């Protein structure tokens, strides 16, 4: 690669591992008006997430975990309570906290590269060369360098989520918010991504809040797993997963954690909640 000195310096600067944020969620409540009246999706939820911590939120559908993620992202406003990122209140969405959605939120009118560049183009003080270098770096990190020019519809589900991950990482956020990103993928692809996300999390030092209904997935990825209970949505129990990394989803130790969490989940009287693993 032929880079001039100035280019090299600012692309490299952009690629530096920056300090991850710590999050403080204080007494957050949120209700939605539904067909059958008002539903309390979150009832005075408080939670602290340390810098570079990987926290998983698990629970049955409708327990408010996605709502909480959206509130942290700034996409939704709480009725009461506060979200602080590094002590500063979150008032709206911003590239410090990027979201990876469950549904493919990639833009079909752009190529793979175009999608990864989207967030970078919104960052000031970068030349187009810098942006390209940064985008290439992240595409390589997720193993998709060869697919830069591909159209989105040509990718498999797993590849799409890899591009989503690269797109979310590219603007170098301090927090990564992941909303069931692997739920729609097959088991084999998922296992690969568990390895990748742990590797990338370690390399890029992000604070990650990860929403899932898959208990085993939560135990595999999280430093802490928070079990949510529905009606009203609240944190029911907290589990600290004390296992060395990288963790293998199929390991026996991990299964023990998953069983404990599953038991707690079942005790909430929601046997139909996904106990997949």
């Amino acid at each position, binding site marked *: 690669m032929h880079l001039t000195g100035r280019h090299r310096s600012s692309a490299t600067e952009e690629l530096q591992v920056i300090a991850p944020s710590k999050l403080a969620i204080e007494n957050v409540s949120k209700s939605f008006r539904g067909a059958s009246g008002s539903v309390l999706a979150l009832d005075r939820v408080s939670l602290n997430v340390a810098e570079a911590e990987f926290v998983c939120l698990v629970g049955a559908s409708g327990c408010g975990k996605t709502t909480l993620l959206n509130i942290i992202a700034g*996409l939704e406003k709480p009725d009461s309570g506060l979200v602080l990122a590094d002590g500063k209140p979150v008032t709206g969405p*911003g590239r410090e906290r990027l979201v990876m959605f469950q549904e493919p939120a990639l833009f*079909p*009118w752009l190529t793979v590269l175009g999608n990864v560049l989207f967030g970078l183009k*919104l960052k000031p003080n970068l030349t187009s060369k810098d942006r390209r270098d940064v985008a290439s770096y992240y595409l390589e990190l997720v193993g998709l360098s060869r697919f830069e020019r591909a159209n989105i*519809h040509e990718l498999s589900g797993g590849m799409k989520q890899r591009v989503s991950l690269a797109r979310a990482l590219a*603007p170098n956020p301090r927090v990564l918010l992941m909303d069931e990103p692997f739920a729609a993928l097959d088991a084999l692809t998922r296992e690969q991504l568990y390895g990748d996300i742990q590797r990338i999390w370690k390399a890029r030092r992000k604070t990650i809040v990860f929403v899932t209904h898959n208990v085993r997935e939560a135990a595999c990825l999280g430093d802490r797993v928070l079990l949510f209970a529905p009606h009203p949505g609240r944190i029911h129990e907290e589990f600290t997963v004390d296992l060395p990394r990288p963790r293998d989803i199929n390991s026996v130790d991990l299964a023990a954690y998953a069983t404990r969490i599953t038991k707690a989940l079942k005790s909430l009287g929601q046997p139909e909640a996904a106990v997949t693993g």
Partner: protein
Amino acid sequence: MKRFLLAAIFFAALVLIWEILFRAKIWSPVLLPSPGQVVTYLESAAADGTLAKATVITMRRLLVGYVIGLIMGLPLGLLTARWKLFHDTIGTLALGLQTLPSVCWVPLALLWFGQTEAAMLFVVVMGTLWSVVIATETGVRNVPPIYRRAALTMGSKRFHIWFKVILPAALPFIVSGMKQGWAFAWRSLMAAEIFVTILTGFGLGQLLHYGRELSAMEQVIGIMIVIVVIGLLADKIFFSPIEKFLHRRWGTSQA
């Protein structure tokens, strides 16, 4: 190449049948001229410049009106998609007027603008506008909300979202609306030119009209062929590449 050959054989057969019908003398040659006569007419009209002049005049009216229709239709479509007030007013108006065959604008245009270029332009704009408004609104309303949310988290704001997310996401709808608008504009312009004599310029429709007045069937058919060819070319040169691009990017089925 094989497809091209088959298509060529098909059209050659069509001309051959025409020639056979002409030679069979079922109809008077006044009503059904031979392909040769039509070609002779087209050659002479091309040689003396009548055809080129008429084509330029017609295309100028069409393009200017079409572009005005687009420039007005796109923002109106965005407004109707964005605000309920515009949806209930302009949106309803557009839906109603789109069902009105655009030929119906000709009498009104004549009374308002007289036998002028403005009348022609008005008819073309009316043909284009409402299709574009409705397609733009539909397109924007069909953009998955998640695109907007994803863009918001990446730091995209109001205008950036509209131009870099909503508009491109709605593009397939907008293009099909543009195509429909083009078809409506083309039809209504032909109708207007056939109806209305304008001294500032003889378009293809007027040539068609005078072919009928003079009972010059070879002229009528010749001009019809020219009109068909222009329609085909517009599709192949302008819309087809855009649609191919959309199919390739979006992965929708390719015709």
